[in-house]
C-alpha cells in the first residue's frame, strides 16, 4: 500500500521534472546566443569584470597579525580622505588603542572631532560636542537623504565591515581603490549600453563596472604620513585596506593566538584520548 502510493508520488514528481527539464532544454536550444552555463547573453559585466589583485597584507592567512604601523597610516588615510563621505560607525575612539595608540593619543584624536551629536544643556536644542574616547566615529551626513544628495544619489557604504561584506575582502578594497581606468574602446564598441554615464566612473573591479565613487586616491602625497613612509597611491591603498581589515575584525590577532593554543591542546588531547581508547579495547577483538 505504502509502496503503491510511493510509486505514484515518485512517478508524479519525475513526470513534472521531465516536463520542466524539457522546458529548460528547449529554452536553451532556442536561445540565439547563449553561454551554456549562464543562459544569458554575454554581458559587459561578465566580460570586463576583473577579479581582485592580491594586496599582500600582514593580516592575510592563518598566521595573520596586525602591522600596527601600517594600521596607523591606514587610519590617517581614512581620516583625511575617506571619512568625508564614509562612516565607520561601529568603531569607537577607544578601540584605536588596538592599533597602537596610548590613552593620551586616543583622547587627543577624539577631541579632534567636534561633530558628535549632542544636546545644548541650557536650551535643549540639538547641538554638537567634542569627542571622548567612549564615542564612536560620527556620521559624515545627517541622514541617508543628505548622503544621496551629496553623492550623485548613491549612499557611501559604512566601512566598518567592508572587507567582510565583499567577496575578495581586503584585496577587493585595494584593487577597487587603485583600479580606476579609462573605459576601453573595444568594450564600448561591443556593449554601447555600458558607456559610463555622467557622474559615474569606470572601474572594472566593481561588479557593475561604473561606480559612483570618484577615485579617492589620485596622486602621490595626498596624505603626508606621520612616520615618513612614502605616500604613493599604492602604499596609501594598501594601508587603508589594512586598516579596514582591522576595523572589521579587530580581534583577528587575538583570535589567531588563542586558536593556536586551542588547536594544539585539542590535537594533543585527541592523541592521548586515542591512546586511552586503544588501551580500553586492548583485550577485545572488534
Amino acid at each position: 500500500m505504502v509502496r503503491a502510493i510511493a510509486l505514484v508520488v515518485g512517478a508524479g514528481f519525475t513526470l513534472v521534472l521531465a516536463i520542466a527539464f524539457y522546458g529548460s532544454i528547449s529554452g536553451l536550444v532556442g536561445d540565439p546566443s547563449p553561454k551554456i552555463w549562464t543562459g544569458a547573453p554575454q554581458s559587459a559585466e561578465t566580460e570586463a569584470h576583473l577579479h581582485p589583485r592580491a594586496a599582500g597584507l600582514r593580516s592575510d592567512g592563518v598566521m595573520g597579525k596586525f602591522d600596527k604601523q601600517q594600521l596607523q597610516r591606514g587610519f590617517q588615510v581614512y581620516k583625511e580622505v575617506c571619512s568625508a563621505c564614509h562612516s565607520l560607525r561601529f568603531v569607537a575612539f577607544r578601540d584605536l588603542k588596538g592599533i597602537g595608540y596610548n590613552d593620551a593619543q586616543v583622547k587627543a584624536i577624539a577631541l579632534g572631532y567636534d561633530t558628535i551629536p549632542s544636546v545644548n544643556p541650557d536650551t535643549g536644542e540639538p547641538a554638537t560636542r567634542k569627542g571622548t574616547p567612549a564615542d564612536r566615529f560620527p556620521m559624515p551626513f545627517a541622514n541617508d537623504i543628505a548622503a544621496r544628495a551629496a553623492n550623485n544619489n548613491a549612499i557611501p557604504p559604512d566601512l566598518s565591515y567592508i572587507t567582510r561584506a565583499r567577496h575578495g575582502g581586503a584585496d577587493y578594497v585595494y584593487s577597487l581603490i587603485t583600479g580606476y581606468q579609462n573605459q576601453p574602446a573595444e568594450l564600448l564598441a561591443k556593449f554601447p549600453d555600458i558607456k559610463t554615464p555622467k557622474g559615474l566612473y569606470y572601474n572594472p573591479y566593481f561588479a557593475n563596472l561604473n561606480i559612483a565613487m570618484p577615485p579617492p586616491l589620485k596622486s602621490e602625497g595626498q596624505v603626508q604620513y606621520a612616520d615618513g613612509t612614502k605616500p604613493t597611491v599604492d602604499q596609501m591603498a594598501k594601508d587603508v585596506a589594512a586598516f579596514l581589515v582591522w576595523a572589521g575584525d579587530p580581534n583577528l590577532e587575538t583570535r589567531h593566538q588563542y586558536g593556536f593554543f586551542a588547536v594544539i591542546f585539542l590535537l594533543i588531547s585527541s592523541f592521548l584520548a586515542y591512546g586511552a581508547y586503544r588501551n580500553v579495547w586492548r583485550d577485545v577483538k572488534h
Partner: protein
Amino acid sequence: MSFPWARQYQPKAPLMRWMDEKLPLPRLVYNAVGAGYPVPRNLNYWWNFGVLAGAALAVQIVTGIVLAMHFHSSAAGAFDSVNGTIMRDVNAGWFLRYAHANGASFFFIVVYTHIFRGLYYGSYKAPREMVWLLGVVIFLLMMATAFMGYVLPWGQMSFWGAQVITGFFSAIPVVGETIRVWLLGGYAPDDAALNRFFSLHYLLPFVIAAVIILHIWALHIPGSSNPEGVDVKGEQDTVPFHPYYTAKDGFGLLVFLALFAMVIFYFPDYLGHPDNYIPANPLQTPAHIVPEWYFWPFYAILRSFTSDFILPAKLWGVLAMFGSILLLFFLPWLDSSPVRSNKYRPKARIAFWVLVVDVLVLGYCGGSPADPFYVIVAQICSAYYFLHFLVILPMIARSERPTPLPNSITEAVLAKHDASPATAH
C-alpha cells in the same frame, strides 16, 4: 529494556544508596550510558556521530543562551547588537558568535553523516522504526531552528532569505497569502517576524532536546544496531557502553572539537556569506539569494520545478522540497528488505553511493546561481532523488539477492581477525 547479561547498578556508598531510593537518576545514567548498557562490540566510527550531534546541540544551547543575553531582537537593533556589541565589546563575544554560527554548520555536518550512516546500515528498519521517525522529526526541527537563527542578525541574507522562505506559504492555493502574512505578523519580514523568530529560535532547541531523549529511549529498547546488521545473540557479542564506547566517543569528540576550533579561530567566515555583513535593506535585493550551505540540496530541488503542470511551478517546487524530507518518514516501509546492512546488499550499496553523489551535486547546484546549466543538472538529480527512495529502493528490496550474512556479530569479528573461536571473550 536491556539484555539479560547487562551489569546491574550496585551502589555501595551510603549517599548513593540514599539517592537510589529517593530519585534513581544515577541508576538511569548507569543503565543508559554507563556499564549497564550492552552495545555491540563491532561498531565502527560511523557510530560516533550520534553523540557528536548531541554535543553539537549542547554547544549551540550554551553559546546561544549567552548570546541571547546581549541580542536586541528588533529590526533597528539586531544587526548592531550582533556586529557592534557582541563582536566587539562583549568579552569573548566574537568567540561566542563564531562558535554559534559555525556550530550550526557543524551540527548539520554531523547530522547528515549520522543520517547517511542510517541509510547505509539500515538503521531505520525493524525494530528501530521509531528511532528513525523521531530522527526525522529532529531533522525538521533543526531546519526550522537554523532558518530562524540565520534571520536574527538581520543582515541582507537574513532578511532576503526570510522573504524567500516565508514566500513559500503563499504558494498554498486560496489561503496561502493569508497564512504567510499571519506567520510573519506583517506583509514582509520586519520587527514582528524578527521577534517571533527569536522567541521560537530560543524554544525549539529545547523541543529538539526532548525529542532526542525520546530518540535515545526508543533506541535503548532494542539496543544499537551494528555494521553487520545481524542481531545480538549473546553476551560475547556486546561490550558495556562504559568504558568501551565512552572512551571511543571521547576520542571522537576531541577530534570534532579540534576541527571545530580550527574553523572558529582561523576560518570563521568561510561557511557564511559576505552579504550578511551588510545591514538588511528591504529596498535592495542581493545579486544572488542563497540560504546557508546545509539547505542547498533542498534549495536546488525547489528551483528545479520551472514549468506549470496543473499546479503552478512554484507550488510544485514547495511540495517537492517538503516532500523530499517527508518521504524519509516512510523509508522503513519503502525498503522492505529484511537485510539491514548494505554490506550484504550489492545493488542497494550501488544505489546508496549514487544517492550520495546525487545529493552532493544537488548541493552544489543549490549554492549556484539559477542559470540554465545548474537548473538542468538539478532537475536530473532531483528526479533521481525521488526515484531512489520511492521507486528504486522498493524495487531493489523485492528483486535483490543479498550475500550470505554472518551467523553472529562475534563470528563476523573473528572472521575479520582470522582467529579461532576459542580465544573469543
